């Protein structure tokens, strides 16, 4: 339990997450894009899971059990997009 990093790490992660939140707002006005936004959000989430929630300090088996399972379900849900665009574009993806 002692290897949970220090307040310094926490503060660095905290500042990092806030900076990325600011970056997202900047992107919203200058280069909006779902994928780009999601990548930044995913990095934020990764930092939060690893450092705030201390998944970094748990056994690697826990990481291997939780993260792939969640990602798998979320990735599978992407199959719905092909239908969402068809309603107005009448094709799987917008041109």
């Amino acid at each position, binding site marked *: 339990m002692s290897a949970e990093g220090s307040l310094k790490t926490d503060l660095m992660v905290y500042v990092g997450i806030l900076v990325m939140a600011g970056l997202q707002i900047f992107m919203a006005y200058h280069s909006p894009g779902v994928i780009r936004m999601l990548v930044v959000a995913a990095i934020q989430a990764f930092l939060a899971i690893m450092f705030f929630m201390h998944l970094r300090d748990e056994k690697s088996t826990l990481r291997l059990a939780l993260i792939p*399972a*969640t990602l*798998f*379900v979320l990735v*599978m*849900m992407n*199959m*719905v997009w*092909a*239908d*969402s665009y*068809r*309603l107005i574009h009448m094709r*799987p993806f917008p041109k």
Partner: protein
Amino acid sequence: MSEASAHVVHHGPPTSFIRKHVFSLDHKVIGKQYYALALVAVVTGMVLSWLMRIHLIAPNWPIPGLQWLSKVGAPGGVMTPEYYLSLMTMHGTLMVFFVLTNAPFAAFGNYFLPIQIGAEDMAFPRFNMMSFWTTFIAFCILVAAFFVPDGPPLAGWTAYAPLSAVGKDAGPGEGLGQTLWGLSIFVFCIASLLGSLNFIATTLDLRTKGMTLARMPIVSWAWFITSCIALLAFAVLLPACLLLILDRIGGTSFFIPSGLNISDHLQPHQGGSPLLWQHLFWFFGHPEVYIAILPAIGIVSHILINSMRKPMLSHKTIIYCMMGIGFLSYMVWGHHMFLSGMNPFSALVFSFPTLMITIPATIMTLIWLGSLYGSNLRINTASLFCLGFISMFVSGGVSGFFLAQPSIDIYLHATYFVVGHFHMVMGVAAIFGVFAGTYFWFPKMTGRMMSERLGRLHFWLTFIGTYCIFMPFHYLGLAGNVRRYSAFTDDFLVPLIPVHKFITYSALFTGAVQLVFIFNLIYSHFKGAIAPANPWEATSLEWSTPSSPPPFDNFGGKHPVVYHDPYQYGVKSSTGDYLMQDSPERAGETP
């Protein structure tokens, strides 16, 4: 040490009647409560199917007493076509959620998972009690739909939008009845989440000394894998129900397209997509099929090994196959939607994993059959139901090959072929698993044996009866008989009515046969022969408890120590041809 012993004592023995039998923390009582709830639901669902079958062959015949259930739905006892759909919806919902999810998974899992891994109770007994009572509330909300003025919903257990989402205009029962349905399933999701959290934590954390994951019996593995599937599948149904309820009472239109005109009434909703509901629902719905069948697969494998008196060809492969099925179950939901107007390219993508999922299923079947070959099978009711399960699983599974291919599915979709397919492979097969489990574990649950003679009678009549009901369904489907029609009086389906008559008579007969089972259950509970400690000469830990039924802490204050793989059959030992998991003895050579 402190961490381990923190779990040795969960709670003291219950003293008051309420703590003992109603709000019990004991996983065994909760398992029985789940079983009783499933029994009530299955009887209700079966009566509903009787009413539907009778209506199909005699649409104008007044069913005595039905007018009291619903004056609007069945004036004078003759049900309206809408009421037929209402009964069908309730039949499906009760059977899928409250029977097929509850009986093999929640009921037997609750009772036997902690015992099989050598634990005193579930990891969180209070949670466990909550999940049962939440399920019970969900059941009450659902059944309440019978008694609201409009009657139960008629959108089917899949509640396809926009029918389920637009409200009263869509027909009787689509008012309050459908809202109750959504609410009930929402509550059921929460109950299932609580249950599966508890199952996973129990399996991982409460295994007794020596009970490594590899030494867990197949059926414990099945419950564990099922709870992993349920954990993530019900999580998706939860927001889907939330959005459906919002559509119905909040005026949103997630699932309702623009410009919809229902009952000469232009709907105010705009911009939604019915396909979205189907996607969300089936994203849960297909894993749900495996939530129903995997525990049955586990129970059957567990009992078969015991009856064969020798290890399976590879019981580990069965576990891997169950994991494979669990994994693939999230990739195939689109095969329910080939004709929904879904993107045809996605149909191809969904078809491939659907065909893939037959591979683990086939491997399991081959292992069962290959192990049965040349074995000295002990024939009793439990093992007969296991054989019946394999038969149903194969017959129903084979029709899945046809439905998995979009081009063939175009012809067969929404016909009785589909109805026959899922009733056999998911409905009857899982119920056979429950029957097998009941006959096998009844001595442990009550301390008395079930009547073997009545059991065999029950098996043979049920086995023949279910084939008589569901095999002709495939023929009807191939002949073009569409599902959800309430009568076939004057259209092209008239020539098929003799087949329908045959099915109805078989259904009435098979349903009546279940009275034998219920009689056997009640009679044996009070008057059955006293069961020996280990009547089936089985090896797993549930037969090591000091008494039947086990004391409240399962092993009488001790913790068993496990020395062996779960299935030490066909070996030489002091007890005969088997070796209990907690026996420190070393197995001799194969006799």
